[in-house]
């Protein structure tokens, strides 16, 4: 158990902005209408978990994704690749109440999901010796004991989602081989084969697996969001050229992956990189962040194309729990709300810490 713990409410520190500023002018909001969770970093370099009403908990290391355990008051914060820890935080006190460790010679990739009943935690992991991508299944009822491993059917599994059928796991296999001894170096860029895998949680069998066309094999599939019949993929280009490339794709079971239409100019502004993706509640729109380009893109899933882009400095986290509305977080400390149809996002909070890669509503 770490000595780290709650730093208390950030309410005193965060100024919830309602400043009037031209295009950035936030409409009057009584308070933050959602409860956000994210990893973060304070100005003096401490790693943090942000949750309940911008409460902060100090973490011993940098984290990646934060998820709430259903039917409980627990927040799980997954360490950043190649971390070997997940921290279980009591949302009421902000204290770290437990720490989950990966098995020997295994590490986490930063993302996880819970089953809807809050019992099973499924993480993306690597067997360091074999390089194999794995999904670890742990039981929350027994202090997160590892029950079993399921293959991820690809190298470098990153983000995963659980379908509403409660059985189908959808996994983004980034395709990039790394080894903790070589830091975060990429070891197989010439031969990488990213894939999207549909895997049964019940029996660990592969249901369906799709790859990218050969010419696009250097687009690492890293982040995904799903509806009941659609998966939106946000990829990262590893080809190391200045040539613009498609970065956002859609997949429906039984079909090939289809890249969504986007002008070359917008593609170039995205700098070959997507940081995070979310689908809104209407299931009509996806929002993708491009932190290297300080850019946000909005996609219509109906017309299958990019419909808008706007600048947001150091943006990366994105989530949604409403129709046509996305929440975005940035390293600048800004938290934004964006409504489809508007030209820009509105600042809803300015915090003194940098929001890390992923934002979640809990």
């Amino acid at each position, binding site marked *: 158990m770490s000595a780290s713990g709650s*730093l208390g409410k950030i309410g005193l*520190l965060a100024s919830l902005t309602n400043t009037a*500023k*031209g*295009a*950035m002018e936030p409409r009057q909001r009584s308070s933050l209408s959602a409860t956000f969770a994210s990893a973060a*970093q*304070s*100005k*003096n370099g*401490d790693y943090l978990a942000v949750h309940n009403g911008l409460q902060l908990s100090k973490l011993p290391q940098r984290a*990646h994704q934060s998820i709430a355990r259903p039917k409980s008051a627990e927040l799980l914060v997954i360490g*950043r*690749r190649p971390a070997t820890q997940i921290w279980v935080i009591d949302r009421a006190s902000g204290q770290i109440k437990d720490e989950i460790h990966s098995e020997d010679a295994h590490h986490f990739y*930063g993302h996880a999901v819970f089953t809807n009943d809050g019992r099973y935690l499924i993480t993306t992991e690597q067997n360091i010796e074999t390089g194999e991508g794995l999904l670890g299944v742990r039981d929350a009822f027994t202090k997160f004991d590892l029950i079993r491993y399921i293959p991820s059917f690809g190298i470098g599994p*990153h983000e995963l989602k659980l379908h509403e059928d409660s059985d189908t796991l959808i996994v983004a296999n980034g395709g990039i081989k790394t080894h903790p001894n070589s830091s975060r170096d990429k070891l197989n860029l010439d031969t990488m084969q990213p894939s999207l895998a549909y895997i049964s949680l019940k029996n660990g069998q592969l249901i369906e697996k799709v790859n990218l066309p050969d010419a696009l094999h250097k687009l690492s599939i*890293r982040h995904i969001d799903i509806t009941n019949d659609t998966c939106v993929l946000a990829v990262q280009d590893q080809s*190391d*050229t*200045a*040539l*613009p490339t498609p970065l956002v794709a859609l997949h429906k079971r039984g079909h090939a992956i289809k890249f969504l239409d986007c002008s*070359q*100019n917008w593609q*170039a*502004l995205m700098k070959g*990189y997507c*940081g995070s993706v979310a689908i809104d509640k209407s299931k009509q729109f996806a929002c993708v*962040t491009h*932190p*290297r*380009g*300080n850019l946000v893109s909005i996609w219509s899933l109906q017309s299958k194309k990019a419909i808008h882009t706007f*600048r*947001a*400095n*150091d*943006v*990366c986290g994105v989530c949604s729990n409403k129709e046509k509305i996305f929440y975005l977080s*940035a*390293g*600048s*400390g*800004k938290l934004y709300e964006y409504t489809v149809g508007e*030209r*820009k996002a509105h*600042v809803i909070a300015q915090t*003194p810490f*940098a*929001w*890390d*890669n992923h934002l979640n509503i809990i």
Partner: protein
Amino acid sequence: MRIINKRLSKILLINCLFGLSSSIVIAKSDWRSFNTSTATNHVLPAYKRLALTTTSMSRETGAFCESPTLKALVEVKQEFASALNAWQAIQHINFGPVETLSRHAAMEFWPDKKNHVNKHLTKLVATKNDDKLMPANFVQNSIAIRGFPAIELLIYNKDALRQLSDDTFRCQVLIAISEHVSLTSQALEKEWAAMLSQFSDPTQVDGFFEDDIDAATALLRTLVEPLEVIEDLKLKRALGSNVSYAKPKRLESWRSAQTLNNLKTNLASLESLYGGEAASNQISGLSALLSQKQDLAIKAQFAEVNRDLSRLPSPLTEHINKAETYAALNGLRESIQLLRESIEKSIASLGINLGFNSRDGD
């Protein structure tokens, strides 16, 4: 400048949140002054020079192709060196107009890891299709052959004079690229002139920036990120792991032997961005925003880098494989790294986060 530092020292405050180390708080109006003076006195004049020199180069290539003599080729080479130098002086500006339509990469497609410049140039020359050279269509040609490296290859190739005089279409390609570079440069100058109001009023409706801090962050990134480019791409990539693996053809502008000149121009331009151009009643350069101690340390590091540069022989291509030059280049790289780290720290002390997500995602 010292007057400003004195004023700042009065508002220097110790930020107790999370036990933050001391940080200087810069007033919004001071950031705005820094932004407008940098855009007006540093960026715009450099684009103006680029537009002038590339136009002159374009004119000279036209004259050369009418009567391709050795003397005329030498003149084209001189104009090329002068235009390239103007580009190197503004290469660090990596946001704004130059981002749209991938114009930064088009002006100089480098590093060219897969020999795209040669391949696409050979292909275009073989088409003998005048339509492809029309200014309105030229943008449809590969990004690799729309800028300086393609011109360089055409005029510095071993047999350039014979090739260009025997094959009139090849010379027309040279004219078309030069004209494209000149038109792009003129457009960039015009668009940057229009962009000045974005700095004087960054919160305008549909503005490019979110606020003064966002605008300042974009400008300050152009001081830091290019130093990383110099360390990693311009030096480290060519130096390799030891002297016997050094690769002269990985040096920028190796054909025209402008490598060292490029480096000197880059550093001089970054030093002037740091120190500010003489301007009354404005905060000019990052230098004016820092404490005297920080400022003197950074100025000493610039002087160290300049000393390292002055000791290097030219052309570097012929000397990089010699132990003494190899060691000197490594020394230069280390000096630049130290300089960059100091600048990064000083920027952080002003409360500016250059990029948490944009520079380190997953």
